[in-house]
């Protein structure tokens, strides 16, 4: 139920219920648009969840690049005197197209779909999903689960053992 924006609104804590509802909205969007892949991430480049075929796609890298690209485009909007950021970014490829749109100020939706698919249809269903996601995310109440509950002191100890293993220290 809760989506917490800790600190200065940039830390995101997503609880189970909220995650489930987001997943349902994305599943609906996937079945309506038949998009090949759908990625939901935050504007800081953290992947949250995905739908569809993701085998060959590095989702974490894709989210980082999508967020970077979207932020860069938002700066372009500012430079040319737009009051808000662009509503979407569209890339047209030979086989695949990619459609990026923001969900509120903090989130990003990426659809990868066949270049045969009509863009108008993608736009309509994506708009509906964005409205549903925006409403869901804004209904989050304030009793957020704290990040500190996620990482307790034992976590720290075992993390260091794992880091030493991974880093050969």
């Amino acid at each position, binding site marked *: 139920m809760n989506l917490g924006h*800790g*600190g*200065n609104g*940039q*830390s*995101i*804590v*997503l*609880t*189970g219920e909220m*995650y*489930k509802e987001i997943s349902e909205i994305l599943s609906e969007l996937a079945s309506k648009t038949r998009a090949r892949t759908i990625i939901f991430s*935050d*504007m*800081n*480049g*953290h*992947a*949250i969840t995905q739908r569809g075929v993701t085998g060959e796609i*590095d989702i*974490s*890298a894709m989210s*980082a*690049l999508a967020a*970077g690209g979207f*932020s*860069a485009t938002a*700066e372009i909007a500012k430079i040319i005197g737009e009051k808000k950021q662009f509503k979407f970014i569209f890339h047209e490829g030979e086989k695949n197209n990619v459609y990026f749109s923001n969900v509120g100020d903090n989130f990003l939706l990426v659809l990868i779909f066949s270049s045969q698919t009509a863009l108008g249809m993608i736009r309509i269903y994506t708009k509906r999903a964005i409205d549903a996601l925006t409403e869901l995310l804004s209904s989050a109440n304030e009793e957020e*689960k*704290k*990040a*500190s509950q*996620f*990482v*307790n*002191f*034992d*976590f*720290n100890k*075992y*993390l*260091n053992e*794992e*880091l*030493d*293993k*991974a*880093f*050969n*220290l």
Partner: protein
Amino acid sequence: MFINWAQQEITLKIVYYGPGLSGKTTNLRYIYSHIDPSSRSELITLNTKEDRTLFFDFLQLEVGKIMGKKPRFNLYTVPGQVYYAHSRRIILSGVDGIVFVADSQRERMEDNLNTLLDLEQNLITMGKTLANMPFVLQFNKSDLPNTTNFNILQQRLNFYRAPQFKSVATKGIGVFETLKMIINQVVNHIQSHA
């Protein structure tokens, strides 16, 4: 920071900051090539034709599950060149911890100081400051003959008394030590502040 309770995932964002050519990308390249491929993503580099960082580099690391929880670390570098100020600000968004890679060579002291100032100014616009965020200093290229004396480097650059390491990123000296320290700083910060 992103926490997903349903999936028991925590993702932290660590940014390598520093003047141009101080070795930020070299740190990431070394990490990339010396870690098990199953524990990392591909290294994404957005470069100019001259192989300088244009926008950012990105590398995600994963370690094994810890008490059922999956920690991930998203490592970014910023472009060091002065005129990419906007890109640096974009990449700092949502940062959990910062590694400042300083160039130990004598002639780069001014560049180190200016970039540190640029970092602090960018953090202030985001309502943060170096004084109260996870921060590690790395004095890179410490094997070169023309380096500033270590005590002077510390005095002039480490005014917040952050953990610090001498490094030679091309050879991996100090690279993983720095990374382990910043991850620890971030986790400790979450435990005491979040």
